[in-house]
């Protein structure tokens, strides 16, 4: 299953790079994709995909929409801080729990999402918490983080008791 996903993404990459759908190019691309996928079989990352079920993948769209909105808000916040005369910043390092998340891929994407949300920057990921550097005050970022954790839990299919 994993090797088929890998092969299909390689084939799609070939089509985009070669800029044509002529059958000779497609044939060569298919052969190259199969050979590369077989040769790199040993190096594929072990992603336990059993938690990601198809009905949960709907939450990816929600996460992406929220991420883009957060990015725009964060950029305007940075612009306001940087372009003002006295730069009202109060940096501090805080630790935030990451809830019941288990899969490393989810944690990685959550860390990237934290970096792109307003006023926060992920410094380090430990076993079950993030070390986060805050630009202003921590109250606003905390609420945003809880929302993100909830959405990623839905993506993994974890039942929330709240």
């Amino acid at each position: 299953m994993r090797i088929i996903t890998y092969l299909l993404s390689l084939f799609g990459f070939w089509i985009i790079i070669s800029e044509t759908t002529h059958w000779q190019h497609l044939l060569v691309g298919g052969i190259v994709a199969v050979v590369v996928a077989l040769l790199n079989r040993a190096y594929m990352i072990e992603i336990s995909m059993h938690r990601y079920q198809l009905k949960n993948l709907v939450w990816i769209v929600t996460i992406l929409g929220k991420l883009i909105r957060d990015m725009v808000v964060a950029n305007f916040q940075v612009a306001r801080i940087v372009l003002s005369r006295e730069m009202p910043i109060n940096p501090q390092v805080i630790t935030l729990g990451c809830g019941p998340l288990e899969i490393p891929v989810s944690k990685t994407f959550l860390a990237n999402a934290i970096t792109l949300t307003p006023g926060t920057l992920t410094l380090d990921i430990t076993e079950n918490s993030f070390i986060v550097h805050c630009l202003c005050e921590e109250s606003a970022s905390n609420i945003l983080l809880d929302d993100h954790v909830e959405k990623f839990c839905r993506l993994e299919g974890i039942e929330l008791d709240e």
Partner: protein
Amino acid sequence: MVTALTIICLLGGLFFFVVGTVGLIRLPDTFTRMHATTKCDTLGLGLVFLGLALHSGLTFSSAKLGLVVLFIWITNPTATHVIAKAVYDTQQQQGGVDTDV
């Protein structure tokens, strides 16, 4: 219409790139500089490439632009995180637990 949207997207991307540069110059220490650069660069590049894709229409060039944007959106926060972790670990090892840098 498409031309106007392209120009708006290019100008917006340019604005965020310039804001990131000003932040890189003005902010006082390493972590706060990272705040400015990683956010502004990610959205600025996205807006510039969105403008170029609107200009190009539904072609293979747009697909390539989308691929580059996807790649940059994944790697830019990761690279910032790696640098921040290196700086933070070095500070911890030197015994300086200065949490309010």
